[in-house]
């Protein structure tokens, strides 16, 4: 259980690869610095999904793709009762999935 979400910043070209890979999608570089993913951004798109997978007891989940101000895009859970496209949000870290006794932490978005 990690309380931070990280990406890989390519040492050669500076592109942040999130999710991480071993080879930079922009330049082919293989050396990365671990950087924390998060901050402020805007909602690119979102959904209320009722077709849930295992591990959830809620009726639906509100998921979003957010474009952070540094250009990195992330998928996470949107904690906002009045979502709109383009709305300003900021990231927080919270429990996003609870398989059995485990608690998985990840990105959540709240109004900025």
């Amino acid at each position, binding site marked *: 259980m990690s309380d931070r979400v990280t990406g890989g910043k390519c040492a050669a070209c500076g592109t942040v690869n999130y999710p991480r890979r071993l080879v930079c999608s922009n330049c082919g570089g293989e050396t990365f610095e671990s950087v924390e993913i998060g901050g402020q951004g805007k909602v690119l*798109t979102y959904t209320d*999904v009722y077709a849930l*997978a295992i591990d959830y007891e809620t009726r639906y989940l509100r998921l979003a*793709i957010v474009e952070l101000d540094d250009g990195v895009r992330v*998928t996470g*859970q949107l904690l906002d009762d009045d979502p709109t*496209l383009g709305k300003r949000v900021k990231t927080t870290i919270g429990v*996003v999935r609870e398989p059995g006794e485990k608690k*998985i932490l*990840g990105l959540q978005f709240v109004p900025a």
Partner: protein
Amino acid sequence: MKPVYIAGAGMTKFGRAEWSLIRLASEASLAALHHANLGEIPVDGVVVANMGAARVNKQTALGSALVDQLALCPATAEAVENGPASGASAFKVGCQAIASGMADVVLVTGVERMRTVNGLEGTDFVASLSHPEAEYIYGVTLPSLAGMFARLVMDRFGVERKHLAMVAIKNHDNATKNPYAHIQQTVTMEGILTAPEAIVNNPPIAEPLHMFDCCPVSDGAASVVLVSEDVAGNLGGSKVRVAGIGQATDTHAVHDREDPTDLKAVRLASERAFAMAGLAPSDVDVAELHDAFTILEIVESEAAGFFPRGEGHLALERGETALGGALPINPSGGLKAKGHPVGATGVAHLVELTWQLRGEAEGRQIDGAEVGYACNFGGFGNNVVATVLRREAE
């Protein structure tokens, strides 16, 4: 590369199966083999397409299981798992065997038996194709990716829920003409969108997508027999040639794409398939697209090159994609109504096209169809196989 032909095609009725996984695969295979009427010509190899048997049916090595069921040992056998694109991937592997000269007759069978588990398990099994750390842990499922995609496309290109409903209405209509389709029921705009009770009939699944925007969960199998030019010549009759196959991939996580509304892998796979075939999208008489969600039929019809970007819903509205339109899309009923047994889907596309090109599609036959196109969409667009088939003169 040596030419490859489809000599026979068959499938089981999609829906809830009483049969075991291998019985399903065997019945579709036998239908295709009988259709091909090979006589004494031996089958050199079997390729099975499947996504979830290891998890859902607790069975592996499906190629070995099927080759024995059909008493085809010691023919070669293998299985291909490539997510929802498993079917067309297995087809590609079969074609490569013949194009290389390593085989003369290959049976390709796609199968899925996923109604054995409950809805949560079934949804979770398919969701396991998403990125484990950047998507899956958040509760991402395929409907959620489709919902987020749909909202963005609708906002950007003026697609409305009525257009999504038009896809469902068309494909449900088509399915009533296909005895192999899972859902044999027409739907109306009133019933799923405009009447007060529509919200009850058609509840949300992943906003803005509702139940009638999503394919059902189906069991089923589909099969084709691929043959070399020599064998096709010996068999005589209608010759359906595999004119082109194209495949392309895209990033695992949907958010990682430069433009998440651009189905780049569909575009590239289609360009490659048409280039190999020496044909253009305008040559296509009938298309089977991967409408796991209604929005996908619209956007795939653009990415494949049939309509300009952002105008697929307008062509749909004008009736161009209906049976009897300029380019009928999903005459089989599509995944939407024919059903979507995941590993079988890509092969079922090619079964329908083969029947259409041979003039055997009965109540949904497109007159004189000569060129067919199929798009098998894996992941949420991260692995796509496009196929172009062409009927040759006898």
